[in-house]
């Protein structure tokens, strides 16, 4: 239902032009969940913002970027070509693609009730009166597991607890009936028990509503629970992708391996955690060659720091960008 080809995003800044996302391609199928994993600064958030054209004014998409979306009525929308203030874009935002954010408190306006903001979204995308919109909103709050929704709907965000706000946030994003939900670290700010509840809820809602989802997180543990497919991002490129089970059982890229080792586990309770060494470089100082070579434990001198590795494909959408996995004789690489 959504394909992204060669997504590049650059920003005009005072220090010159930076390109934090380079040549990212992925697709999402109806009813499935794609997980985007990476550290802060890997470009996963802004990649999804580009899908809704929510990037700031100094950002621009690359010339060969193509974002195609098939709407609920079957129409094909070329998102990269939509005019910024058009009706088509307003219909797409919220009505076709919904978005939820990491900070539920900050994503609600504090000065309007939950109901006010939900009814606004509903009436923007469905032809209905105030009363009907209110009924839809109450039903949606009920669906996300908020008790006594008919009273809660008239509350302000600050009158709710953190977990409840996150549920309300999900209800808000879903109230306009999007076919694709982008969830930007929706569970990161929650404590672990509530995190599990929210993940359960999202999985149930996805099944009931038949939605597709793009789930952004830095936590491979969360991905394992919710995503069908996963794409690991590092410094604006996808370094490894594949079915979630495959990637987690058999990670190929040293970065994915590092991320998996960094997850605390009960089996390794007595050992120290092994973090991925170093920090993610700033997009202004993008390393030459493989972007990960500055932190890679398996760094090959003279190759990794000189040439950028091509994407090496495998079975069933599995691929990796790493010189360790380049099969020179096959020549199947697609750069």
């Amino acid at each position: 239902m959504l394909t992204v080809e060669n997504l590049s995003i650059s920003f005009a800044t005072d220090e010159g032009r930076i390109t934090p996302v380079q040549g990212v391609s992925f697709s999402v199928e109806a009813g499935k969940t794609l997980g985007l994993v990476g550290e802060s600064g890997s470009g996963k958030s802004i990649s999804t913002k580009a899908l809704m054209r929510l990037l700031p004014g100094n950002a621009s998409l690359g010339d060969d970027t193509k974002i195609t979306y098939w709407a609920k009525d079957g129409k094909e929308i070329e998102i990269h070509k939509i005019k910024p203030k058009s009706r088509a874009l307003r219909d797409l935002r919220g009505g076709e693609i919904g978005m939820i954010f990491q900070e539920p408190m900050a994503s609600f306006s504090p000065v309007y009730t939950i109901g006010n903001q939900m009814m606004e979204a509903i009436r923007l995308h469905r032809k209905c009166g105030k009363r009907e919109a209110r009924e839809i909103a109450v039903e949606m709050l009920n669906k996300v597991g908020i008790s006594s929704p008919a009273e809660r709907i008239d509350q302000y965000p600050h009158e709710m607890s953190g977990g409840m706000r996150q549920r309300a946030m999900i209800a808000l994003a879903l109230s306009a009936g999007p076919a694709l939900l982008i969830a930007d670290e929706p569970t990161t700010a929650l404590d672990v028990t509530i995190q599990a509840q929210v993940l359960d809820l999202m999985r149930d809602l996805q099944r009931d509503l038949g939605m597709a989802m793009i789930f952004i997180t830095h936590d491979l543990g969360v991905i394992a629970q919710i995503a069908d497919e996963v794409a690991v991002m590092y410094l604006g490129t996808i370094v490894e992708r594949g079915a979630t089970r495959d990637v987690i059982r058999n990670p190929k890229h040293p970065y994915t391996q590092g991320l998996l080792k960094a997850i605390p586990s009960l089996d390794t309770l007595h050992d120290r955690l092994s973090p991925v060494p170093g920090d993610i470089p700033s997009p202004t100082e993008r390393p030459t060659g493989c972007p990960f070579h500055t932190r890679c434990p398996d760094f090959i001198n003279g190759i990794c720091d000189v040439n950028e590795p091509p994407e090496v494909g495998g079975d069933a959408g599995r691929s990796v960008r790493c010189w360790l996995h380049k099969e020179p004789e096959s020549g199947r690489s697609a750069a």
Partner: protein
Amino acid sequence: MLRFTLERLVGMVITMALVSVMVFIIMEIPPGDYADRYAFRKFSGTGVSVTEADVQAIREDLGLDKPMVLRYFDWIGNIVLRGDFGQAFAFETSVVKVIGDKVWLTLGILLTTLLLTYAISVPVGIYAAVKRGSSLDYGLTVFSYLGLALPNFLLALILLYFANKWFGADIGGLFSPQYQDAPWSLGKLWDLIKHLWLPAVVLAWSAVAYQIQTMRATMSDELNRLSVTAARARGVPEGKLLLKYPARLAINPIVSTIGFDVNRIFSELPIVAAVLGLTELGELLLKAYLDLDMYVAGAILLLLTFIIVFMNFVSDLLLAWLDPRIKLGA
């Protein structure tokens, strides 16, 4: 909201009571009293020698011999119960008659100035924040600093000159000569409006410059909030989005400083009024002090502070309406 309003009302009454005590003390502080001044006026140059006993008699005549506390309660009691602000000695009539119309004119200038200030600075500030970094934004910033740097009386003179040159009108004062002493009518009101814009522009000038910058700064902050992005991601049309989400919060510092603006207008008004030849309260206040005409001075001080306290009350209510979180904290 009702509870909040009542609480603020009680607060306002207490503030006014304290203010009235202070005003009365200020009235008492200047050395001498109107009895001295009256004796001097009446007998100076006549060759009659005035004894302490004569002054004391005048004092008793005017009721100035009673103890201060007693006079305070007489004074405030009459104001609250009968709307009687006492005697204006120098005018030999009641304070209410002396102040009369001037209160309404001062209020007229004040409200026109405030309306003009906010009607210009809020939309322009929003626009500058949205178009941040554009040449128009920089142009507005330059204008703002010019506005802040230009002294009021100079601006008044310049505007007076050009208004006279271009509109040919006798722009000084608040009324044209034919309406000066005429009873109130539609014609007189229209005449007032024609004269009111000039002092309002002069008084609003620096406030507009200042408030544009305030609005621009807070609006820029609010625009970056996640809640704005979230609303945009729900497909809210941009114009509605700007007004409903960031602007409502960004206007907060402007609303909360309404009281300061009123205060500033009152302090600048006398100079501007002197240049433009307006008859308003400030001028009268100065005269009352020179004459030691304490009840006139007291009434003016009390009215001015009442207006400021009342505008603060209005600003509190507006703030609570703008941001429902405030009511909980109260």
